[in-house]
């Protein structure tokens, strides 16, 4: 990092590791640069911060805050990977599994899915105490190149922000309130919108789960050789740490 930039920066700690941050940076942005991984689902590089999944909850100055939206503060001690926070995050991830219909064995995203990978990282392996909500959700295969299986949507809103801010389109949006809130498309169905398979919103990196599906390319990479078969989610960020 350049000397001049450092002068305007400040430091704080995450789990005792000293991190440099600059004015206006969030805790997560600073952590990413320093190679400290904070679990996340709704936040995604290049997209506006939303702060809705709450998986990135950390303790900063004694308060629980979302690391993806909370600005870093000089001298603050941030707690990230404590057993207590891991338990909360696991609860949140499990809530997302139970809110939708996640049948990993038949899901095209399995192995590339961030929700699943987060469950692995957070050891979601104990007998659940949460009920399964088993909502009845739609499959939209109207578009020639794209399908949506909203059974797997976790309402992270990444597609909404990618379409609005990167593609300049607005193909997706939220409708409803509370447990009925969900992602819908700008029209009767996807074919009725101006979505294209080349949109950033449709690209494999935006949807963290197996909801947005590009037709005719499924299962190109066999199960067992996929992204998170190679390492835990977050390992790439952690590899940055010197």
């Amino acid at each position, binding site marked *: 990092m350049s000397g001049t930039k450092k002068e305007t920066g400040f430091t704080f700690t995450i789990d005792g590791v000293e991190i440099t941050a600059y004015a206006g940076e969030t805790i997560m942005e600073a952590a990413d640069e320093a190679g400290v991984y904070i679990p996340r689902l709704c936040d995604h590089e290049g997209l506006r911060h939303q702060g809705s999944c709450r998986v990135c909850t950390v303790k900063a100055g004694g308060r629980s805050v979302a690391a993806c939206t909370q600005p870093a503060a000089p001298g603050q001690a941030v707690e990230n990977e404590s057993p207590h926070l891991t338990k909360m995050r696991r609860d949140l991830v499990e809530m997302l599994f139970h809110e939708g219909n996640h*049948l*990993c064995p038949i899901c095209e995203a*399995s192995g590339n899915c961030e929700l699943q990978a987060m469950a692995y990282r957070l*050891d979601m392996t104990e007998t659940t105490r949460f009920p399964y909500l088993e909502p009845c959700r739609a499959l939209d295969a109207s578009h020639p190149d794209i399908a949506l299986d909203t*059974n797997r949507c976790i309402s992270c809103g990444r597609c909404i922000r990618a379409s609005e801010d990167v593609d300049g389109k607005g193909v997706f949006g939220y409708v409803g309130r509370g447990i009925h809130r969900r992602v819908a498309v700008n029209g009767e169905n996807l074919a009725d919108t101006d979505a294209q398979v080349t949109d950033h919103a449709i690209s494999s990196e935006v949807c963290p789960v197996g909801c947005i599906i590009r037709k005719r390319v499924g299962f190109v990479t066999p199960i067992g050789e996929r992204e998170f078969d190679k390492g835990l989610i977050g390992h790439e960020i952690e590899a940055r740490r010197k």
Partner: protein
Amino acid sequence: MSDLPKARIATASLAGCFGCHMAILDIDERLIDLMQLVDVDRSPLTDKKRFTTRCDIGIIEGGCCNEENVHVLHDFRRNCDVLIALGQCAIMGGLPAMRNAIMHSDAPLRECLEEAYITGKYIRNTTHNVPNDPALPLLLDEVYPCSEVVEIDYQIPGCAPGGDIIFDTLSKLLTGKFRGFEREMIKFD
């Protein structure tokens, strides 16, 4: 190890595809090590249909889709100290549980049966009837994960779980060393 009394194990396949039982065989040559530690009581692997003795560990494949599954699971819970749900079907219903979410009509079960035996696109059923032999167990309204029917002590994820995680977990449980899974071994697919 060999001076420990052997643990007694039982297994059952409920609403599953038997894949998880096949996966037990994926332990390969380590099966011999494992057999040093256990005797297998009631199990499709031994073809014993009843418990001959109380067991230390019961291993369940599949969730509950019919009354017989429930009956067997109750029997296992009563006769085993520790119950393990093996594979996604046992853990969360798995593929059979797809009917829970897709059937939200007023008569979900009837529709499910009709689609499976009569109206489904790929069905060739010359009788045009839903099978109804008195010996057939009654279906449940939904497919239930094992943990909704009885208390489950451990679960081994995967569909089917790999031989490694099965061997590792069982051998650690048998020797009292189980402290959770190696993260790299956890797979839901």
